[in-house]
């Protein structure tokens, strides 16, 4: 693992965070906390793991990323811009009248947005269909689905988990942004997911757990895909909601609140 690579990705992550915080604060938008927790995951995927080409966003052999935790589109948009799929001015369209950057992603609202999501529980079933079809066609590309922890309350998510395990879809990778806070409180209080790893394993998935803010750990884990042939892979990434936002880290409030204008200029200086 080259230290140069990690530093580079950390710089991208910082830049993505800065743009996200600015963008969401400007419109007093929601879901900044869950966007900030997924930044290292998206940075690592888009810069080091996914076979994608910003100059050719529809090329047939590309890896597909389904951003199933669609409410955190702010992170997806900022990452796609950082990666070169769109200019940074595109972020001015967030929530804007008549523009395409809705609070949850619509397919092709930016180049690189593969699927429309926003209602939790929809992304993984579509990913299962895409993975099955890719295998049927003998195509080598992989399907990545980024899920929220709260999304693993949905029955449809478990239908997909069950289906993928049964069909041994080893070209399918799920990544769970496990920040342990959903939209009205902690996951452990609302619907405990633990033992989380065991639940996936029982459905025939291969599981790895990482610190979701360690680019080094993320790089290492994604190097080894699929974790085992004949099994879909899942990375349970332990993260902090609101990571990078002083005063709002690991809070429910980070799901809803943004810094005030005064706080914002101070925060952005730190970036």
């Amino acid at each position, binding site marked *: 693992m080259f230290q140069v690579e990690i530093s580079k990705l950390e710089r991208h992550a910082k830049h993505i965070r800065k743009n996200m915080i600015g963008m969401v604060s400007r419109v007093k938008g929601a879901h900044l906390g869950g966007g900030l927790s997924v930044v290292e995951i998206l940075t690592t995927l888009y810069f080091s793991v996914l076979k994608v080409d910003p100059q050719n966003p529809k090329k047939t052999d590309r890896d597909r990323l389904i951003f199933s935790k669609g409410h955190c589109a702010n992170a997806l948009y900022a990452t796609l811009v950082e990666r070169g799929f769109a200019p940074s001015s595109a972020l001015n369209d967030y929530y804007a009248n008549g523009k395409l950057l809705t609070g949850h992603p*619509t*397919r092709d609202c930016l180049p690189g947005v*593969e*699927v*429309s999501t*926003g*209602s939790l*529980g*929809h992304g*993984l*079933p*579509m*990913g*299962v*269909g*895409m*993975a*099955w*079809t*890719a295998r*049927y*066609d003998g195509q080598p590309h992989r399907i990545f689905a980024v899920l929220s922890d709260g999304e693993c309350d949905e*029955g*449809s998510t478990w*239908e*997909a988990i*069950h*289906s993928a395990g049964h069909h041994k879809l080893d070209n399918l990778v799920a990544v769970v942004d496990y920040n342990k806070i959903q939209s009205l409180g902690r996951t452990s209080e609302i619907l405990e997911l633990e033992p989380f790893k065991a639940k996936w394993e029982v459905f025939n998935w291969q599981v790895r757990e990482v610190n979701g803010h360690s680019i080094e750990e993320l790089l290492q884990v994604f190097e080894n895909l699929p974790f085992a042939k004949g099994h879909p892979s899942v990375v349970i990434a332990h993260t902090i909601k609101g990571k990078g936002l002083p005063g709002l880290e690991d809070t429910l409030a980070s799901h809803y609140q943004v810094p005030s204008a005064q706080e914002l200029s101070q925060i952005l200086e730190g970036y």
Partner: protein
Amino acid sequence: MFLLTGDLGYAALEPFREEFPDRFLNLGVAEQNLVGFAAGMALSGKIPIVYSIAAFVTLKSIEQIRNDVCYQNLNVKIVGVGSGLTYSQYGATHHSLEDIALMRVLPNMKVICPGDPLEVEGAVGAILADPGPCYLRLGAKGEPRIHQESVDFRLGKGMIIKEGKGVALIACGNILANVIEAWGYLKEQGLNPRVISMPTIKPLDENLLEDTFSKFQHIFTIEEHSLIGGLGSAVAELVAERDRKPFSFHRIALPDKFQETAGWLDYMREQNRLSSEAIAKTILEHFKM
């Protein structure tokens, strides 16, 4: 093209499965995954046909139909078997009396309810040629043929089965057989109704309907679906917005309540005034008023 089922289709899908085993997929009793999976296939360039019981696929996976299929305008065909009261003996959970209403309110969805096996054949070809979401509402096996020979089926086009004068009967689905019989009774009573099969409820054949509104004085719709939101409601919307209404308009359909007893289809149709005699009677009563 792929045929996906949610663990249904016994004694129906076997010929397809035998001939095209790698195009057939049973995804189990999980309708939300079934439709999401189909959306994933369509995003990958395939044409998935989703087969299930009409009540299950249109209700349980409606959000997937709306968000994954319709919002992304994907080439997914939803086929619901056992529409209306086809499974009357099984009880209300298996009745599909809301599906036309649910499917037609979704943008980008086309809604097709063929009236006989020849219309079904035509409809299948038409929906496969269409590039977007389609809902095909089927009854059961072995329904009577109404048309004499294969039909020139077009999406969005109704078919005049009997020409007629004065009274027009517009039907969708396999209740068409009862409507034809009712037509026979009405002829004996001196009426000469036009009978139209309107197998596409969305988009409606507005030209044929406008022609009917302008030439007929008494117009009835007949369907095995709730009074609320089906063919009758769709036609009523056009009637209500038309400036001149030199005609009376009446919907014949199922009442807004759950069926509370068991019973075979003929019995249930009788109970709900959808037997051919009852349909004729409803229409004749209208003239006494």
